């Protein structure tokens, strides 16, 4: 039968190490949450993430069904598989939540983000910025003699890549919407 006496220092782990039970694998998941469009619903979702120590990489929200008063919240989050499962279960518990979809595991999906970039500069740098914007299919939505505002849509990776290229060319300000995502197919 097992020992009854505990030696000093033998207690290694405890329930308090739960946060990261298999700390090795951190995954990124895109969740689509359909909610009643009512006061405070976003605060409930955000409060859940902050209160339980989950990460939010990106979050977008807007009404998608005016008649049914439904909004769609798209959240990109990271965590171990167990934490991701908890996040989904916890979201499902919020009363105004109708559906929780994990687009990362529910088959193929498309993700898009819109961003605005202000790039200021003159001469060669200005020409190079315009040339790269063209390659990335970014539109010029405002321009002065010393600056452009580009509008770009794409995956978060594409937008990140564009940002890296613009930085040495005079990038002064960025605004990003966060990810909107849908599953593919009918």
């Amino acid at each position, binding site marked *: 039968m097992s020992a009854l006496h505990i030696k000093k220092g033998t207690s290694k782990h405890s329930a308090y190490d739960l946060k990261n039970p298999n700390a090795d694998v951190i995954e990124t998941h895109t969740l689509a949450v359909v909610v009643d469009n009512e006061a405070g619903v976003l605060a409930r979702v955000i409060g859940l993430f902050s*209160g339980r120590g989950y990460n939010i990489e990106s979050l977008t929200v807007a009404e998608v069904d005016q008649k049914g008063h439904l909004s769609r919240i798209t959240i990109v989050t990271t965590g171990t598989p167990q934490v991701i499962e908890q996040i989904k279960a916890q979201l499902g518990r919020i009363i105004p939540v109708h559906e929780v979809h994990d687009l990362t595991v529910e088959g193929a999906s498309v993700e898009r983000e819109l961003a605005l970039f202000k790039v200021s500069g003159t001469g060669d740098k200005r020409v190079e910025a315009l040339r790269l914007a063209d390659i990335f299919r970014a539109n010029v939505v405002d321009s002065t003699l010393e600056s452009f505002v580009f509008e770009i849509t794409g995956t978060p990776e594409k937008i990140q890549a564009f940002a890296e290229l613009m930085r040495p060319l005079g990038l002064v300000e960025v605004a990003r919407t966060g990810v909107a995502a849908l599953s593919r197919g009918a």
Partner: protein
Amino acid sequence: MTRQMTGAKMVVQALKDQGVNVVFGYPGGAVLPIYDEIFQQNDIRHILVRHEQGAVHAAEGYARSTGKPGVVLVTSGPGATNAVTGLTDALMDSIPLVVFTGQVPTFMIGTDGFQEADTVGITRPCTKHNWLVRDTNELSDKIHQAFHVATSGRPGPVLIDIPKDVQFANGAYTPPAKANTGHYAPRLKGDKARITELADLIENAKRPIFYTGGGVINSGPAASQLLRELVDATGFPITSTLMGLGAYPASGKNWLGMLGMHGLYEANMAMHDCDLMIAIGARFDDRITGRVDDFSPDSTKAQIDIDASSINKVIHVDLPILGDVGHVLEDLLKIWKSRGRKVKKDALEKWWGQIDDWKARKCLTYVNSEKTIKPQYALQRLEALTRDRDRYITTEVGQHQMWAAQFLGFEAPNRFMTSGGLGTMGYGFPASIGVQVAHPEALVINVAGEASWLMNMQELGTAAQFRLPVKQFILNNERLGMVRQWQELLHGERYSHSWSEALPDFVKLAEAFGAKGIQCRDPAGLDDAIIEMLEHDGPVIFDCLVEKHENCFPMIPAGAPHNEMLMGEADTQDVIGAKGAVLV
């Protein structure tokens, strides 16, 4: 047909239509219209507490002892913030409550008006759901929805914040049958294929155990009945969390006693060594699991729970069954019986032999004394003298709470009310008031520590006013006993602020409120004193002076696994690693 009425009248009408007959509350400016309506009717009884925290705990006691939702009415600002501890307590322990708060008029919201607080903001994380109702026409729907949400699925507290102008304005009242209660409808039936798999596991288990919790009690009396049938028919041993005590009777032959940090040796050892664990309405709380990576290492784990987030949160479960305990147990019994009621008889016999060896250690043994009252002895005598009565027990939080769970026997569900998840000192006294309101003829005893009891002692006024004969059985060790125990074991006996200094004379205190006070310090006089308490028709404070430095055993120190329990004083030398000391 809808009727026009003021928002304030709607509140009272909706409560009547929901079958509510008691409200625990405290008035103030922002709820005066509702109080005016309460004044003008006789169907709903209002219990005036002495502090809003008391109102919420009383409503919890009412809810837990009846299975019906508890209802609370408090004012805006400080009334609402005083309710926060009770709401959090009810959320942690899954207690259905509907709490009404007054709010400043809609046109003043956001102006820092007098007694304005962002009540829905403050209570969002400590309610199952809450609503700020800005339009009288929506009020009755929201109230009916509130009752629906509080009582369905995993129960919990909800709050409705009603601005004063909404209470005064006229609007259309919708009765419950016509109300729009939203899309919330948790699934009750469990997946048949999985239930069949569980039946299969039951048939093949060699060392099974039922691990049950508050979810069984929340599911209703039928669930406890089905559990009893299943346990007796399979012959499997059963243990329970603090929250689940009474679902299976303490006198039942398969009962192993409570498990967990201060649970029984046989219960924890059986959990550790089992090959099949069937968790029913229990959530693998850290007080239960101890060190998680050594938790029951060789078992297949099945879990029945209505809350998906309780499954695989802490412990990996092999066979999760999402559904209401009562519904799932009904199906499980049907399926298991239809397959021929099979179990591994020989293996079970061996398993019980092992369990009997563990039982033989008699883990609750303590050294009694003829000079001072040992707290365990006091509870044994209380048990002996009240066991056969129509009895409800509440507790405060601390050593006395754990001893109550160890030494009192609970034969039926809804008979034991204690703050499990939040561990709220000050819970027990107001909870006992709520229980007594629900069961006027029953014997209601709050097993208390002197420090906890002082946290809501103002409720003595409530007990006196409403002639509620609640018995306050205070195990007075003049210490914050549980804190002191941890300081002894983990902090080198440095007793930092764990004394109860300047204690009142409890007898005089009782008398000051028109209640009865009894003090007892002599083990020989204990029985007579308890009988005197039981025979008094009115509230009693029983000041039971007990051994000051008694420790509560068995104990699984924080950070240790189930099979490394401290059984008594001799085990406590140098036992807890540095890592254990950072855990609560």
